[in-house]
């Protein structure tokens, strides 16, 4: 069928358009010379060495990992609790709560950044990893809550009734029955929150300080001026993390099915 050929060709083009540019970053990290060259003049790992030797780059990577872990932990705990709470609400209160949670998704990030930066400045909290983690939690929380909410809705409500009827306290019933069954949704949320935080640029740029600078912020600073392949190394690390995260979430989904 001619149609099928056209469709396949078109899909291949779109797929290439979406993936290849991103992948183009990777070879740039292996360029031997001091300029970014695609394809590289000569292949070398010297810029990887340079990356890990440079204190500011190293620190930014560590900061990113710290903030992302903290944000993921906060998002998951708060988001799961919120999902449990919202499940019990009804009527206009529920709508209001949902609207509040949807807020950070709808409001443009730049507005969130400026607003939070202004507030943080006035209380001297700019440039702390804690502030960064809280800001990232704000972004990821709605998604986690929604994700867990979907898992919760898919649960048979009678399971909880069975558990309480057999004498379990609400916490015991949650721990032994509900949580194991929504775990894939929770872990998926955790992975998502981690990556969201790790990838986050705008909020981080505004809230960063000399002591607290994430990897994206460092990259942002570099590429606005002049950049060497070290930036491509940083970008490749970010891509590698994203790939690892997608793989992890695939594994989780397969366990769920």
């Amino acid at each position, binding site marked *: 069928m001619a149609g099928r050929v056209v469709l396949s060709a078109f899909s291949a083009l779109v*797929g290439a358009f979406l993936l290849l*540019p*991103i992948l183009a970053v990777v070879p740039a990290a292996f360029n031997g010379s001091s300029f970014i060259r695609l394809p590289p003049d000569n292949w070398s790992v010297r810029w990887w060495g340079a990356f890990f030797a440079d204190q500011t780059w190293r620190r930014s990577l560590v900061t990113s990992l710290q903030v992302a872990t903290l944000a993921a932990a906060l998002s998951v705990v708060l988001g799961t609790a919120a999902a449990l709470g*919202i499940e019990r609400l009804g009527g206009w209160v529920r709508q209001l709560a949902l609207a509040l949670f949807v807020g950070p998704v709808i409001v443009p990030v730049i*507005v969130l950044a400026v607003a939070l930066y202004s507030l943080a400045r006035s209380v001297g909290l700019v440039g702390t990893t804690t502030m960064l983690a809280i800001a990232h939690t704000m972004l990821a929380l709605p998604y986690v809550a929604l994700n867990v909410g979907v898992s919760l809705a898919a649960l048979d409500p009678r399971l909880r009734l069975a558990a309480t009827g057999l004498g379990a306290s609400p916490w015991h019933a949650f721990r032994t029955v509900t949580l194991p069954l929504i775990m894939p949704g929770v872990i998926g949320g955790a992975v998502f929150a981690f990556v969201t935080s790790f990838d986050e640029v705008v909020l981080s740029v505004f809230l960063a300080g000399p002591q607290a600078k994430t990897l994206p912020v460092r990259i942002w600073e570099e590429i606005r001026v002049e950049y060497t392949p070290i930036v491509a190394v940083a970008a490749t690390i970010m891509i590698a993390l*994203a790939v690892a995260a997608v793989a992890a979430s695939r594994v989780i989904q397969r366990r769920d099915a």
Partner: protein
Amino acid sequence: MMRVGTALLLAPALLVLGISFLLPLGRLLVLSLSSPAGAIAPYATLLGDDIYRKVFWNTSLFAVVVTAITLVIGWPTAFALTRLRGSARALLFAAILAPLWISVLVRTFSWMLLLETNGPINRALLGIGAIRAPIALLFNNAAVIIGMVHVLLPYAVLPMYAALVRIDPAFLKASEGLGASWPTTLRQVLLPLSAQGIATAATFVFLLSFGFFITPALLGGASNITLSMLIDHFVSERLDWALAGAASLVLLGATLAFVAIAGRFVRVARLIEVR
């Protein structure tokens, strides 16, 4: 008893959202109204000054163009997703979903690498003799649009795919069985039935592109300033908080207005599900 438990469950999340979302926004509103020149002065400046109006126009134009392009490319892609089978389908899905996990910064940076004067595209064109000297592919409208389309395409494809996949294949068979040609089936059956999905996609992409910061900032030139870049300028360079606040609230207001209008055609809650 139930009430207390529910409140305790929601409290921490509400606290975080309160101090990191509601409070800052409220404060920003107040700031925007506290210019020494008067409460509405910054707003008047923004809406009155030609330069700022042009920024608003630029931003809207980008958003409209990017939305249109992503819809045109995205719909057939979504359709392909419903028709392809096996590994081809899996690959296309991966190509659409994987970029969503990668930072917008990295995705934009990749276009910087590709479009720069010494980049592969220019060198390829030079190599095959299509051009004599490298052309400026970067720091202009086209670059911004390409970059934004690249980043936002998945957000357009997914809602449209969700709508298309829900269409009962029996409809297509019925249309063909009744003698309709492909274009007719497309026009009379597929497009109307996926209209909700198209509307959702358009809303999502428009919303995102209107507030976009990173991509236009890195790929655009001096004459392609968007509203978000203007806000950044007010904060980082002018240190004019009243103007920054006012511009932010104008952006927010426009966004909310758009959501409200679109909300009559599209379930806003759907947007959050796409991710």
